[in-house]
């Protein structure tokens, strides 16, 4: 079978090869001491890229587009958007 296959079929979740983090200007920085683990940042992230790692919520910078929804919705103001030095 060729790469195109015969049914135009694509493997699940395969957009993960594309690192949309390159789009970002500002990067979310999470203050884990302020964080109350409400998980709203994770729920509202359009790019499904904030996850709990060893108890703390951490953005996956491979995909984070820097939209700042997490910072806006954090009820404790624990997330700051910082201009990224690339």
């Amino acid at each position, binding site marked *: 079978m*060729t*790469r*195109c296959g015969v*049914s*135009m*079929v*694509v*493997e*699940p979740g395969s957009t993960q090869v594309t690192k949309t983090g390159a789009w970002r200007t500002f990067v979310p920085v999470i203050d884990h001491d302020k964080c109350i683990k409400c998980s709203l940042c994770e729920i509202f992230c359009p790019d499904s890229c904030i996850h709990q790692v060893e108890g703390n919520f951490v953005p996956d910078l491979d995909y984070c587009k820097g939209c700042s929804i997490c910072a806006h919705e954090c009820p404790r103001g624990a997330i700051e958007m910082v201009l990224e030095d690339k």
Partner: protein
Amino acid sequence: MMRVAEGSYAIADAVRCCSPDVVSVYPITPQTHIVEHLSQLVANGELDCEYINVDSEFSSLSSLIGASAAGARTYTSTTSQGLALMFEVLYNASGMRLPIVMTTVNRALSAPLSIWNDQQDTFGVRDSGWIQLYAENVQEVMDLTPQLYRISEDPDILTPSMACMDGYILTHVYEPVEFLDPGLVKEILPPFSPVNVLDPEDPKTFGAFADPSWFTEFRYLQYKAMERALDLIGKVDKEFEETFGRGYGGLIDTYQADDAEILLVSLGSIVGTIKDAVDVLRKEGIKVGLVKIRSYRPFPVEALKEALKDASVVAVIEKDVSVGYQSALLTDIKGALYNTSIRVPIVGFAVGLGGRDVAMKQIRKIVENASKVKDEGLELETEFEIFGVNPECL
């Protein structure tokens, strides 16, 4: 055993023998009897399938895209305006490589509105990536039905197909036909086993979009599959003949063609009339014969070259017009022979538009015109004619 049956009834029974999982239909004249008979077969418990009445032809083919992607063997039938409404779904089904089979009843396209037969509708979707086979009589449409499933579902083909049959002339005729034996159909038609299906256990994506770095390759693969179908159509026709005792010659068939100086080329039910005309003209000593096109897409270029190479004149008779430039079959045949050493004059006649009856006397006149071209040479104005225009109507 031969039984007299209405064409549509016989087609519905042939569909039954192919055991479709999903049948999705919308009524349109003169296709309706096919889907009515199918619904009765389901109501009687003689066909175990999911049958739905949908909101349009657009939806009938769209729903079959879903059903086929979910692994179902699928069937629908339409004609004319319904086929036109399906236009973008046709391209989509073939591009997604879904082996849907459809009986396409040939009928004129509006305006003016006409419920009567010509072949403008299917010629109009020539480039949609569907296999198109044209049948001469009811038996041939019946026999094509399992053959088309076999061809479309072949893993090397995976291309949808349509069996084209002339509206009223074949759908509403009562004639003796041999009904198919479902057990024998199973011998030539294995169960549909698609490579990819919509399944949560193996969650694939169907119908992704292709940017310019991919699109050409998809079309190329479709083109190649259609080329492979050229071989398979003949092979399946032979297999069918071995099992059922009826064969149709594969891509094309010929009649009194071996020594013919005047070769008529045509397709569909008019072929029967032409054969009768050939018999009569032969008795008068006119060396006329017939090449019947069965497969229009894929187009049987090599078979046609072989069949037409010794003719003195070729006359193409078809029921469609490309307003602006002649007609589809004529230009395709000219194209097929152009880059060869075959230098036979080719003329075309558009007949039977919107259900105008084509009788033997018209075929005789066409042969006379073709004969004149043979003797006097080809002039541009004699190359193509909308045949039988009544000046009193103009």
